[in-house]
């Protein structure tokens, strides 16, 4: 503890000092650290590597504050949705999720000292089953698109069919990722514009709820159509919207996926994300990813009494680290901490709160759309009931409208004008949620009015 010693630790993250190292090297019986790398090819050792020098913590914070400041101010009006929505996250979610016992744990291989992660994961599975109407959920996959791709792989394994069908309008990222994941297995990916095109060649029909252009889908007829051809219905659902909408399971879905990030925390440019994955019981042993099960102690506790209840990773026979090339997926690390935040948000809202929040979102979006419809020169093309996203066609071509909005300090909705759907023609896709500030909606309406007046 005395005054500064020479030969201190090389870095705050690395405790051993020069003196420690000398003592350890002696015990190990080598002369220096280099000797420990003797197996590495001498000719290629210690290459020149061009990396910036180490920063101290204050320098690091200053640098990254500067960088963060180079992004646009996220508190300014912005109406992007299209797969990522602004939500009100209860303060308790971030507080609890930041507890280091959760944050700094690994996958719970040792259940006796991992009940926190395991029991929370069981809570997550329970919440996801309730929301989706499924009986089995895993502990979460990377994101909605990869989860949906895994659903397609499961469906092809289960049905032994070689093609999958995706129904438009569906998020283009989902299509992309399904293509990537099915490429190796040589599966065919059909993009349908009508469920009528589904056939016995298809392992599954993938439907997004609400769809990519915001409409609420009546799943039941789609489920019937799919099931008639022995096709599984995979629903890609927004779990927040499920606070209001009929559960996909109730409507006949066989597998449900979804994106959990928005209910877990900030968008963070898209990730960490969270892929929900739940299915009907028959697919239990075909599921990708980790699953947690409830069980009992093997013995009575030392204090006496009945064996207590605990949670363990289960059905591991499906998994890569046991079954290797015959595993149901290669997933190992997924998104546990995000699943925890998602669970806490949903549970904090509770059954009433989630319903109320979803209704508030619905009301606010419809109110904004109505105000825009009321503006001369604007149209909000609608095909039927919708949830939080709507198309806006204005007096200018979509790209120009978007540019004008940007000039006025408004982040416009996504430009979907090049899509095939008639209603998307010339349109931008706006999202308004329960968390979009009133002032932002006002600013949008004013800006559109101003643009309309100029046009």
């Amino acid at each position, binding site marked *: 503890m005395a005054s500064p010693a020479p030969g201190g630790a090389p870095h705050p993250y690395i405790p051993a000092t020069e003196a420690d190292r000398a003592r350890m090297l002696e015990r190990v019986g080598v002369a220096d650290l280099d000797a420990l790398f003797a197996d590495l090819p001498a000719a290629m050792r210690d290459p020149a*590597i061009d990396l910036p020098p180490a920063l101290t913590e204050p320098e690091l914070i200053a640098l990254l504050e500067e960088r963060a400041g180079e992004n646009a101010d996220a508190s300014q009006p912005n109406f992007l949705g299209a797969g990522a929505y602004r939500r009100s996250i209860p303060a308790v979610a971030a507080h609890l999720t930041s507890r280091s016992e959760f944050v700094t744990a*690994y996958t719970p291989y040792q259940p006796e000292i991992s009940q926190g992660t395991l029991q929370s994961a069981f809570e997550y599975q329970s919440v996801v089953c309730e929301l989706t109407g499924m009986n089995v959920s895993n502990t979460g996959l990377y994101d909605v698109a990869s989860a949906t791709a895994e659903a397609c792989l499961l469906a092809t394994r289960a049905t032994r069919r070689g093609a999958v069908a995706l129904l438009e309008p569906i998020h283009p990222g989902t299509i992309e990722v399904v293509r990537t994941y099915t490429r190796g297995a040589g599966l065919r990916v059909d993009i349908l514009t009508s469920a009528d095109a589904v056939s016995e060649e298809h392992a599954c029909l993938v439907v997004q709820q609400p769809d990519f252009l915001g409409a609420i889908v009546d799943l039941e007829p789609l489920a019937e159509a799919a099931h008639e051809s022995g096709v599984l219905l995979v629903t890609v659902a927004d779990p927040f919207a499920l606070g209001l909408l009929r559960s996909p399971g109730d409507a006949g879905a066989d597998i449900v996926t979804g994106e959990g990030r928005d209910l877990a925390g900030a968008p963070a440019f898209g990730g960490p994300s969270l892929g929900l994955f739940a299915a009907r019981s028959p697919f239990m042993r075909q599921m990708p990813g980790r699953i947690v099960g409830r069980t009992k102690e093997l013995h009575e506790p030392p204090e006496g009494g009945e064996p207590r209840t605990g949670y363990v990773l289960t059905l591991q026979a499906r998994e890569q680290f046991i079954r290797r090339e015959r595993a149901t997926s290669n997933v190992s690390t997924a998104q546990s901490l995000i699943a925890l935040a998602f669970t806490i948000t949903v549970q904090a809202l509770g059954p009433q709160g989630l319903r109320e929040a979803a209704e508030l979102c619905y009301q606010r979006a419809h109110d904004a759309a109505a105000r825009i419809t009321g503006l001369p020169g604007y149209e909000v093309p609608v095909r039927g009931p919708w949830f939080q996203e709507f198309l806006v066609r204005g007096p200018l071509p979509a790209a120009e409208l978007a540019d004008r909005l940007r000039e006025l300090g408004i982040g416009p909705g996504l430009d979907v004008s090049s899509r095939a759907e008639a209603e998307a023609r010339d349109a931008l896709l706006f999202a308004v949620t329960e968390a979009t500030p009133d002032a932002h909606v006002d600013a949008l309406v004013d800006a559109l009015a101003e643009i309309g007046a100029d046009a």
Partner: protein
Amino acid sequence: MSALRPGGDDFGARLSFDRGGPGRRAVDVPAWNGEATPLPDARLLRDSLRLPELSQGELVRYYTALSARNYGIDSGTYPLGSCTMKYNPKVDDLVASLPGFAGAHPQTPAEDAQGTLRTLLELRRGLAEATGLPAVSLAPAAGAQGELAGVLMITRALEDRGELETRRRILVPDSAHGTNPATAAMAGFTVTQIPTAADGSLDRATIEQELDESVAAVMVTAPNTLGLWEQGIEEVAGLIHEAGAYLYGDGANLNAIMGRVRYGDLGFDVVHLNLHKSFSTPHGGGGPGAGPVCCSKELAPYLPTPVVDECEDGVVQLTAPERSIGQLQQFHGNVGVLIRAYAYMRALGLEGLRAVSGQAELNANYLRALLHGYYDLPYDRPVLHEVVFSGSRQRKEHGVRTYDIAKRLIDHGFHPPTVYFPLIVDEALMMEPTETEPPEAIEALAEAMIAIAEEAERDPDTLHAAPLTAPIGRLDEANAARRPVLRWQEPEAED
């Protein structure tokens, strides 16, 4: 002191669903005061939803108590081999949660996300430098997804070469991580398992023998799961290339060789990294992670989308490589994790990264030296960042299994090591202290292991019963799998 009720009560029997009471709530939702739009037809709406109903304080207590039933790296030494559990700098969490980063919508136009994009660009460049592989995509969300990307890149390259129909095999050593064969299979290949040589290294003879026109790639974990370096891998790389195949490197354990040698220099074609190990981003009990994939110039056109690139005008963009295997996720990967990894890289710099691998090696070898003689060492030679012991002597002589040893370590205050992995070591105990453990912690761990070895002789029954001081005793895993209970169900009597 976060237990709701310490002592004998059955905490796990009561989920949040079983707590609280009807009508309680943890947050209120603002009322809508505007004009109300009618809801859609009831057929489209949910009629019931069973979720817990707790007041805010109850919810906080429940999850706080759950956290107290978990062991993290902040709780103590966590020598989980291959998983690289080391101290996660708190400043990384701080910077990743800056509103400018956290608030960015994934579809934000590039010009409005330059802060994030430049950070990703510099991380990408740093990883290229550290691996000696010029092209990098940060998209994969974890190691396994990085592997999938890497293998699919090989698929696509073979396709372009017109050899995809013929090259259907991937050679994988039996010491490889389970994700390697699983990924190869997922990508449609047949896996040929290569046994490990007696000295723990790649069986070169078998590889040479197997290498023919049906082979697409060889997947090698480097360093391997015995904590050893595959000596001569650079020569094997030559053979593989000669045979027209690719060398895939599982670089999850880059931390062992950071700054010492580079995959690219050795002839690897494509490698994935695990930033949630090597770059110390927190694992969160099972993710999120980040598994960037790094490759040679030849394979660069196949990288997953997006790749971060700087335009001529200095603007940083997300781009899609020419012959990309496509996207792996709807958006751009686990950006929050990547920012943490960047902060870690900048906090260490080159000298720091070298210090990491140096100290990680010294710590592993120190532990090896301290335990020498107490536990069998099937491959008794200096190791890199981790060391694999075997409990076979304890098993044979005292009927004590590695499982028992691991559980007993809990009573000494340590997280157990990885057990029964790699599969090629009987009763394996795979220990990775990492560079962030002080020597005293390694000594204490060794003392505990030695005490257990002695206890195995004296009192094997205590070992069979361990752990005795954990929040819960050994659990019936067999029954959990046999009769799966996977979700909360409404108590029947009560409904």
